[in-house]
């Protein structure tokens, strides 16, 4: 062990598990504070135009600068991130419900399994953005349309994972042995299968967030998503396109960076939760 490592261990005498928990906790705290701050910000006061300070570069007063109508970009970004988290949450829940239903259905028998696999492949083969736009329009657009569109298109990877996982568990010897011990199917599903797939579900939900958020932003950017009066990140980015050539770089830079940061935070939480729930790595 080198000297620096020794020092490190002396100062921060914590194991990997505690460290992972702390990092996850901090990331979660940031996300929750972003989301909760939405309810304390006075929307009308923040979003009304103020032509005395138009197009101000970033300063201590306006951290992310102001836009062409004098609105504070930091507040707009914060509201946009809140909307993103909201869309991500609803869409993830819808996706997960669909994925669980299909995963459980596939374990009924081989014919149903074939059908489920075909449906998963069918949805997986259509380009994501195209499908999201179509479903969003079919549901009438707006917030509701975006949530349904993102939710109804993102379940394929999780459904595939759950199907494979349930299949693997069902054919394992400890399930057969449980049958030998005279346990009922419900008992096996409750005690054996559910606890084994719940970690996959939790990790799947969390890792679906970044996807949902990115897709929400991209279809809003393309103009098929949230209406223009909402302070969504995609709309902020597409509006700022017009002003980039004039040198107002902060209009796109900070909101884009915040979105990236948000996505990375969700990714980090997902990875860490996966680490904590996996029995192989949980005790390290």
């Amino acid at each position, binding site marked *: 062990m080198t000297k620096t490592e020794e020092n490190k261990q002396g100062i921060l005498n914590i194991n990997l598990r505690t460290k992972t928990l702390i990092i996850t906790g901090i990331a979660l705290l940031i996300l929750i504070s972003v989301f909760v701050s939405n309810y304390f910000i006075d929307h009308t006061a923040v979003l009304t135009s103020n032509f005395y300070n138009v197009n101000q570069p970033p300063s201590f007063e306006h951290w992310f600068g102001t836009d062409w109508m004098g609105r504070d970009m930091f507040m707009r970004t914060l509201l946009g991130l809140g909307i993103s988290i909201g869309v991500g949450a609803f869409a993830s829940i819808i996706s997960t419900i669909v994925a669980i239903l299909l995963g459980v259905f596939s374990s009924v028998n081989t014919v149903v399994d074939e059908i489920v696999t075909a449906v998963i492949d069918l949805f997986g083969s259509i380009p994501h953005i195209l499908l999201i736009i179509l479903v969003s329009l079919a549901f009438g657009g707006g917030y509701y349309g975006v949530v349904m569109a993102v939710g109804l298109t993102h379940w394929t990877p999780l459904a595939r994972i759950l199907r494979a996982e349930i299949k693997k568990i069902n054919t394992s010897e400890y399930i*057969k*042995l449980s049958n*030998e011990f005279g346990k009922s199917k419900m008992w096996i599903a409750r005690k054996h299968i559910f606890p084994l797939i719940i970690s996959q579900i939790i990790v799947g939900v969390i890792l679906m967030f970044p996807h949902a958020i990115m897709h929400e932003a991209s279809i809003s950017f393309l103009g098929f998503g949230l209406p223009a009066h909402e302070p969504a990140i995609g709309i902020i980015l597409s509006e700022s396109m017009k002003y980039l050539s004039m040198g107002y770089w902060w209009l796109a830079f900070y909101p884009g960076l915040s979105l990236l940061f948000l996505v990375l935070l969700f990714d980090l939480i997902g990875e860490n939760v996966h680490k904590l729930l996996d029995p192989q790595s949980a005790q390290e």
Partner: protein
Amino acid sequence: MYLNANNISFSYRKNKPILKNISISIPDNKVIGLMGDSGSGKSTLCKVISGYLNNYTGTITIDNELIDKTGYCPAQLIFQHPEKTMNPKWKMHKVLSESWNPPQELKDTFGLKEGWMNRWPSELSGGELQRFSILRALNPNTKFIIADEISTMLDTVTQVQIWDSLIDYCKKNKIGILAVSHDKELLEVIADNIVLFNDINKL
């Protein structure tokens, strides 16, 4: 009490029978050794007797009564690879109690240490896990033990220890044992009768 398997035939694929009209009878006070080459169908016979494979022809009876397929199976199979028969997310005390809660002295005779109870299956060695899977199969409802190469991965001293305590318990509680192995010396020590499982089907 006898476990009788009469005219068992079984094939994994059509027209390729792996078991053909096999009959075997296991008394509840004896250890029957079953010996044969690799791939001769020993494990398949074990799985058929203990109810893991269902589409066989023939009958399996205990005292002339067919085995009830819904409840606890009185013929319990112990596998060669114990780690596969345990839920990786269950701690050992839970694994054991899925079948029953054995008394402390029985845990001692099989050499189960108290500290093992709170570990995950991935934290114990194959030999340690095999003690759990043997003890788990010794539920009071068990009438016959089908031991499919249960000691192959153990060293000789542990083999003797485990077989001694298993046979001791089974003789006391009138549990019949079908011991499958390709280790002739082991079977000669532990078994009362040895059945040779010849590969007649594949000729």
